[in-house]
């Protein structure tokens, strides 16, 4: 993904976009294992509010995080219409609670802008960039970083 390369198929990536808190986010389609409807979670003790608990994904115990709460925008009132995106990134598989899944986008690397320096560093770290397409602005989330950050020890100690 070096920007100096000529545009090839490798420079184009497909993203799945989803809605949370009225904003449109996107994640690399290769990191997404499946999308499923909301099911009640089993709460975990002593975890931050954005960790909604765990669900049974065909025998796997899957932790679910609330994207809205992770972004510091309050806890999602989850209903049957909400969606859990099952993400497989890095060494972990986790579920991410979002409002809805909307689209599949093909984005070339030239369409990706770096993150403007308006948000706090801590939130910046898992935003890969911003894609602007037909006037839409989509925030590209780096799933590996997101999954890694949510299990970070520091965050938990603060919350505990």
């Amino acid at each position, binding site marked *: 993904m070096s920007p100096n390369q000529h545009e090839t198929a490798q420079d184009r990536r497909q993203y799945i976009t989803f809605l949370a808190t009225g904003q449109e986010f996107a994640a690399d389609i290769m990191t997404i294992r499946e999308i499923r409807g909301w099911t009640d979670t089993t*709460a975990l*003790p002593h975890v931050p509010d954005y960790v909604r608990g765990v669900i049974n994904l065909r025998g796997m*115990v899957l932790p679910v995080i609330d994207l809205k709460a992770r972004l510091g925008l309050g806890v999602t009132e989850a209903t049957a219409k909400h969606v859990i995106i099952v993400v497989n990134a890095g060494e972990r598989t986790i579920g991410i609670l979002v409002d809805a899944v909307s689209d599949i986008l093909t984005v070339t690397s030239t369409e990706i802008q770096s993150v403007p320096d308006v948000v706090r560093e801590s939130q910046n770290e898992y935003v890969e960039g911003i894609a602007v397409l037909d006037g839409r602005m989509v925030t590209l989330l780096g799933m590996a970083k997101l999954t890694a950050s949510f299990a970070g020890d520091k965050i*938990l100690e603060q919350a505990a």
Partner: protein
Amino acid sequence: MDPMEAIKQTYFQECDELLLAMEEGLIAMENGEADGEVINAVFRAVHSIKGGGGAFGFDLLVGFAHVFETVLDHIRSGQLAPAADVVKILLKAGDTLSDHVMAARDGAGEVQDTDIKAELYMLSGAGPDAEEAAPTEMEGIAFTPIRLDIEEPPCPAPCSWRIRFAPHAELYAKANEPFLILRELGRLGALEVRADLTRMPDLSVLEPDQAYLAWDVVLTGCDDRRKIEDVFEFVTDDCDLEIREDVPLPPLACASRTAAPEELQVPETVQPASAAQSDASSDKKPVLAAQALETAPKQIIRVDLDKVDRLVNLVGELVITQAMLTQRVVECGQTHSAAVSAGLNELEHLLRQLQESVMAIRTQPVKSVFQRMPRLVRELAAQTNKQVHLALEGEATEVDKTVIERLGEPLTHMIRNAIDHGLESPDERIAAGKPAEGSVKLSAEHRGGRIVIEVADDGRGIDRARVRAKAMERGLISASASLSDDEVDNLIFLPGFSTASQVSNISGRGVGLDVVRRNIVELGGRIVISSTAGKGSRFSLTLPLTLAVLDGMVVAVGNETYILPLSHIVESLRPKASDIRPFGSSGRLLNVRGGYVPLYSVADLLGVTGAQDDLAAGVVILVESEGVGRTALAVDTIIGQRQVVIKSFESNYRHIEGIAAATILGDGRVALILDIDGLVARCRENGRSREYLQAIGA
């Protein structure tokens, strides 16, 4: 994987087994059971290690193994008697050989073997000059470790033949059939055939039209070499053939005991590869089976552990699905249908059997861990100048592989402890009227669905006054605490008890007994020590047979369902309001038949909402754990007791204190398995519980 690398890996796997066999044999010799069978087994093990090592160019390993093997050969042929001092050197040589294997595997540096080599030369009566040349000449043929070239025939009347028959691919191409040839050979006399599968590659790289098999044949009762040659008349150009006269070999069974299982296991996986070859190998099996009948070897296949684990997981899923199905049927009101409920019962029954069978695949005898201990004991004995005899018992006891893997460290520690702290020096022992040689007994047995492992020594026992003084000094107990002897003994497991002043280079590897205990408790086990002054002490370690399932009590707290490990539960009771006493700022104590134990609400500990505020309205479960002693936990209700499949979520998330793992209940929901130590320890860190402890004199 690079095929050479794969073969190398197989070689090292085999080395592990061979080293174990060698060690086992040497220990038998140490105990005076040095019959031909045992010596042969040791010899064979060392020889096979050498042979394989040569193929990979591990010169140092081969060089040492050769010297070792020479001495063993002398013992085998009766030139050297396996006296105690000889066996001692052999044991040391065995350790060095295993170091060599390790060094070859890890590519580590040289192994210091000059001293032991010199001792071996003394035994074999040969100088290094004469011997050193030998290994290089061995290398060329090293990977066909046949017993052919081993035994020099001093016997004047040979009537048996050793034949090495290795067909080339052309032999098969010309429609010859090794089986028929071997059968023909069998008409000449008594025949013992062994297939040499060392050249057999992995199935993935196996070429079906190539020849990989070779046979080592011992033919007895034929007096004419030409008759044998005649049998091979049509194939001599298409095979490697070697015919030698040999002394009559007394018992073949001795070699086959160690050899048969590894050789039998391969045809199972190989058969489909080549019609001609597999015919030969399967037809030959009865011969092998017959010859090995008295030792009745089991057929074994090597399976990747991942595959077994996947199977275990799937069966776990199946059990959960079955529970779910049963629940759904109940919800539908279909339970009145006899056919449905009979079917469900049958299903449950079968699933239970299936689960047990699958779990049994993962079990292994504890031998693999136990066998590592004699070496440890020898080294410790040498370091401490004590004389130690190690007795092993119940090595065949089987436990789940996950448990086996984690047994090594605590066992090592307990044995170190027994030798370093438990046993006295020979002088002290004699003064105390004991034999100079101390004894350490390591035993394993199944007891009540768990495995109990004991390390018992006949040393001085625990000095209770000193333990007590030290515990007091460290602030672990109050001066007024009245403790039973057992309680004093078990103080040594408390964190902070093991101290710098106690650390020697043997016991003190930075791991206190508290860590050992914590590791054991993490496995769902417990460890206690009992001791008699002057007579010795005994560590008892109890562990579940498997770490994949757990017997648990399902409880409800608020809207949540939790599992408490049954192994920790002492009893459950409905408390009277008058039995619950406030204590300190926010603590509570529960009166259990006159004794007070700290009482915690699980809802408070886990921050669950919607639980009963009035603890007296719920149920109290009295638990006991190594870390926190006896504690009462208040829950809303008990739902039932069941076996649950343990699911880790740590790989996807992280460890949460107080939660051991998760499981999936019959309704498909996840329930958390509580870790009682972690749960209560969390409170203790808040400083609330020390006062309890002191108050109740614990």
